[in-house]
């Protein structure tokens, strides 16, 4: 480098100004943090709180929750439905047992008050209360079911399946008319998340993704456990109704994704292209 280039560098360097000046390290002492206790009065004289606490929030508000109900808002919630309650709805004619019972049937008869505001509700939990009086043959579809509840439904010659609905298809089932009036094509149901795959592929709980041949074995195994004779469904007059199941990608019975419902003209618009069938299977 030549001298002239050095000089050019020095010319471009910043000059010492009031903006650049600052005290030497250690010359100025920072005042201690008051932690919310001001400069005057009673609170400034009081002892300071330990880490994680301050003057305004009490410690139980500040400290994290613990216990059984921790993160209750983030957990998946299910609405309880007892067998006694289901029997009463059938007795009063609000639910038709000649048709399959699902979330939409219970929502339309106002049997359950479905919670649509909280974002962590995912369906129905069938409970065993009223197992001693239950006497109807139904094809019911719930999200979670008790073991004794499964046994009582099958003892009467009924069928039960545990299925998963994602949040958007759950909302569609709670109010189908509102869903059809949007004018959008029917969307496809999503598959269960990773945590629930073991539950819904289990034939013991009659999961909808389980092998149907193993479900037949488990039906007999449960009958042996509780000591009742399993009725033969194939000779039943309701056989066609009892074998009605939804596709894993289907929200409503009979209506496949991609169709549009026209409530004004009482018709259903079905696309002809094959892309839909490929899309629905994806």
């Amino acid at each position, binding site marked *: 480098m030549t001298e002239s280039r050095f000089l050019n560098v020095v010319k471009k360097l910043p000059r010492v100004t009031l903006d650049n000046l600052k005290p030497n390290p250690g010359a100025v002492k920072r005042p201690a943090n008051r932690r919310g206790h001001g400069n005057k009065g009673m609170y400034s004289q009081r002892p300071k709180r330990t880490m994680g606490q301050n003057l305004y929030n009490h410690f139980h508000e500040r400290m994290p929750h613990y216990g059984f109900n921790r993160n209750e808002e983030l957990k998946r919630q299910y609405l309880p439905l007892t067998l006694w309650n289901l029997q009463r709805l059938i007795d009063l004619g609000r639910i038709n047992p000649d048709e399959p019972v699902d979330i939409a049937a219970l929502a339309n008869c106002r049997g359950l008050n479905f919670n649509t505001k909280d974002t962590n509700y995912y369906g129905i939990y069938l409970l065993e209360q009223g197992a001693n*009086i239950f006497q109807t043959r139904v094809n019911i579809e719930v999200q979670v079911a008790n073991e004794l509840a499964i046994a009582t439904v099958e003892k009467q010659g009924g069928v039960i399946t545990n299925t998963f609905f994602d949040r958007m298809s759950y909302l569609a089932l709670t109010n189908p*008319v509102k869903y059809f009036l949007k004018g959008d094509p029917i969307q496809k149901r999503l598959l269960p998340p990773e945590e629930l795959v073991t539950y819904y592929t289990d034939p013991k709980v009659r999961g909808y993704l389980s092998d149907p041949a193993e479900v037949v074995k488990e039906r007999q195994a449960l009958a042996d456990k509780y000591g009742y004779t399993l009725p033969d469904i194939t000779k039943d007059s309701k056989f066609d109704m009892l074998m009605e199941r939804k596709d894993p990608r289907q929200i409503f*019975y009979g209506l496949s994704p991609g169709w549009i419902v*026209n409530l004004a003209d009482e018709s*259903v618009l079905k696309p002809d*292209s094959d892309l839909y069938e490929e899309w629905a299977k*994806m």
Partner: protein
Amino acid sequence: MALRKCIYWNKVCPTCRVLLVSLNGPQITIHGKVKNARSGLQSYSTQANENNPSCETGYTVSKEDFKWVKRLLPPSKIPDPPKHAEYPTPSGWSPPLDPPPDLPYFVRRNKYHEFSVTVETKVGGGAFTHITKIEGDIWALNKDLARFLEPELKYDLATTVHEVNQRITVKGKFQDQVVKFLLLQGF
């Protein structure tokens, strides 16, 4: 394939626009065109009547499949309970007697064909049973109710009678027993 060609030339007809939203697949990407498709049903339905040949992706209008939708439509009013072979039903319900029983009081049912007997619970563990929709001599009902419930108890029944609102409040949880009493009376 016709649909893909339609997108490739940037000429998305209104019928295809509805289809594109539903497809939502990875092979199709449209910028700006999808947003207008939400109001597509009106044009979709008008196209159905005119049967426009310019739309390459076809669709069929089926009236038969509307039977699946009819299942999902809620009833306009609460249905009347069906006639059963014998009463009480498995859940313990039975209809009111016809003609009504010859008593100085009467208890109506609510719109769900059940008695409006509710339990109010308190934080400290206390509970009250409320009976509403009472007509006639409310004091006579109060006396008969106490006569029915007291043999099972080891103490005197505590009740309050509200004549203006026609309501009886019983201290404690007695929902099942009260409903059983009202059914026995024939209301």
